[in-house]
């Protein structure tokens, strides 16, 4: 199916995109109905299943083509650049939520407390509201709560994620030096650390809900805290799944010291979630 060896590989006809589009449609349609309380859970789950099937089938096809040697250095560059821009789009997605956090902390909460242009807002609407951070707002949405400090579980999680970055780099060097044993071992350590991180986050969430009364609906603090850490946790989960796939491919003998785009793309992604976590740790947990 390759157009010709040595030329840029242009695949001819693929069913995966239209399967994915149908899956996304069912997922969105079902989710919207479910949110309206008119029963769309099953269509949504079916859509999700189709989307997952699409990912599996599409990537499997790409892996087959890669192993068959269809991809020239130029195709490899397309994949690399594509991945970099995808990660950039993810950065901008998180930027929206970090922006919301900074706006609330630096502007909207002080304004509600009467600072600057908010003098009359405070006087007429929220008299007596003292702006502090963390806060659940002048109406105390969600009731009294306690914020979690940076030095318990979050510090351990930071250490775990930073360590996983190191083990991943060791695995990468091992791949380049063709030390397959070290590669497989350290890659396994990386995704294990990732899963431990997700597990500890889940434990922290339970604790916050039960003992701290800090919930998603705990005013602006709960909103920003759970949306930021939640989306981050979701991305760590995705990254861990990617690492597991790459690890399974390593077990099957895929990747050479020279050509291993999937490994590198996954590594970039992992470092990206790592960096986002550092931002979270500093601005959500610490200060």
């Amino acid at each position, binding site marked *: 199916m390759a157009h010709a060896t040595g030329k840029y590989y242009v695949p*001819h*006809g693929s069913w995966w995109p239209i399967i994915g589009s149908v899956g996304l449609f069912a997922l969105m349609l079902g989710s919207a109905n479910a949110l309206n309380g008119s029963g769309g859970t099953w269509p949504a789950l079916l859509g999700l299943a189709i989307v997952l099937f699409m990912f599996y089938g599409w990537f499997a096809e790409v892996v087959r083509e890669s192993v068959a040697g269809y991809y020239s250095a130029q195709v490899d560059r*397309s994949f690399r650049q594509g991945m970099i821009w995808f990660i950039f789009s993810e950065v901008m997605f998180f930027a929206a939520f970090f922006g919301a956090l900074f706006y609330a902390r630096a502007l909207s909460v002080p304004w509600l407390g009467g600072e600057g242009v908010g003098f009359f807002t405070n006087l007429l609407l929220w008299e007596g509201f003292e702006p502090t951070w963390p806060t659940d707002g002048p109406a105390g949405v969600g009731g009294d709560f306690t914020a979690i400090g940076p030095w318990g579980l979050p510090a351990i999680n930071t250490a775990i994620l930073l360590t996983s970055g190191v083990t991943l780099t060791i695995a990468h060097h091992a791949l380049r030096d063709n030390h397959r044993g070290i590669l497989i071992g350290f890659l396994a350590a990386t995704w294990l650390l990732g899963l431990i991180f997700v597990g500890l986050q889940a434990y922290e969430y339970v604790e916050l809900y039960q003992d701290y009364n800090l919930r998603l609906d705990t005013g602006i603090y709960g909103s920003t805290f759970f949306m930021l850490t939640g989306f981050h946790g979701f991305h760590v989960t995705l990254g861990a799944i990617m690492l597991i796939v790459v690890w399974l491919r390593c077990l099957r003998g895929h990747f050479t010291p020279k050509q291993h785009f999937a490994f590198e793309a996954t590594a970039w992604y992992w470092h990206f979630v790592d960096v986002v976590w550092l931002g979270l740790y500093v601005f959500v947990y610490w200060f």
Partner: protein
Amino acid sequence: MSDTATHTADHDDHHDTPKGIMRWLTTTNHKDIGTLYLLFALLMFFVGGSMALIIRLELFQPGLQYVNPEFFNQMTTMHALIMIFGAVMPAFVGLANWMIPLQIGAPDMALPRMNNFSFWILPFAFTLLLSTLFMPGGGPAGGWTLYPPLVQQTGDALPFVILAIHLMGISSIMGAINVIVTIMNMRAPGMTLLKMPLFVWTWLITAYLLIAVMPVLAGAVTMLLTDQFFGTTFFHAAGGGDPVMFQHIFWFFGHPEVYIMILPAFGIVSEIIPTFARKPLFGYDAMVYATASIAFLSFIVWAHHMFTVGMPLAGQLFFMFATMLIAVPTGVKVFNWTATMWRGAMTFETPMLFALAFLFLFTIGGFSGLMLSIVPADYQYHDSYFVVAHFHYVLVPGSVFAIMAGVYYWLPKWTGHMYDETLGKIHFWLSVIGVNVTFFPQHFLGLAGMPRRIPDYATQFTNFNMMSSIGAFIFGLSQLMFVYIIFKTIRGGAKASAEVWESPTGLEWTVPSPAPHHTFDEAPQVK
């Protein structure tokens, strides 16, 4: 090259390519996908256009005649969402798909399967969006900007709108990644960055803007969704949030979005004017740098959309002056287009007519934009018909005319046939008259105090509104001619040569017309 020239379209259809509808569902060919995008955009142009005509019908005279206010508001909201995300953006992506590989000498887009995915998400997204019109509570009616708390009064439609926007965003981001990677990685040997045609340059920068801001829109509407259904308080003051925060996040997306819809138009016009003035583009490098400057400035002007929300004075001043700065690179562009024509051997075929109308009328829209950037003046203009006149001048005789110019310019290359020049000119004159009769009086309406998004008005506004409505129907109905001309050209007509026009520059004119299914399998050498 010689091998592409001898291929017939028939021979090039690969035996493993399915026939009929299956071909279009599974295609990975940039020309097929470009065609799909363009046809989809044309369809949406008529859907959104019909909504505009409903609006103008209701506004033909004061009082309520045809629709109730709730439905009127749904029409203004849906008209905007459909025209922006369904018509203008996909039309530009369609042109990018067709022309970028041809202009840089690439065999196809860099990521062909993802290219197909980008397109096929769209029909599903717009099915979701349009289906809201038939739901309890109807479609979204709070304006396309989806400001809370108003938008949170939407009925069942809200999650559908938000999730449809997510799908459109996914489509745009994948499309933009494909464009950037194609341009950065697939250029023929010798095609250095500063030799690329301006259309390629403007799309490179547009694609960057898309990847930077579509995720921000996704974040904004996600916050709306969680505020509505999961109890977050991003946009509720009671919980420490702020409805104005939505406007900041939205317009951080929204202003670059405006340039996403105009930069490729600049590119098209920069291709057409040199061809019909028979002179190279004046100040090529300056055009590239001006485009990049406009893109950079687009990130630091967003709050000029919200001068009246009560932001600190320092913020107003910053955003006012930053906005005014945009006039500088835009002025460079207008000057260079004019200078390109200076002492040129000009002819006025339909693409050139549309490009010239673009130049004049976009400039009018630019000037009214400059007026709006002045904070104290904006207090007066804000949310009036003056704003409506402004952005329709930059979007209709701006973006839409540039798309039409591009279609007339490249249609012979796509179909192998010349379009009917007489019909094209009639279409042009009806369009240009219709557009001006529609939108010019709206400046006066706005300055006299008529607010936007209201189905009724005081009687002193009647004359200008009647004019505007008559113009809208002239413009809308004359677009049926556009469809007729396109399909007539697809079906037959005078044979087009490879060059089509008199010595145009660009690699696309070195391949036969119609361009074979596969071009530049062997990269051409660019000197």
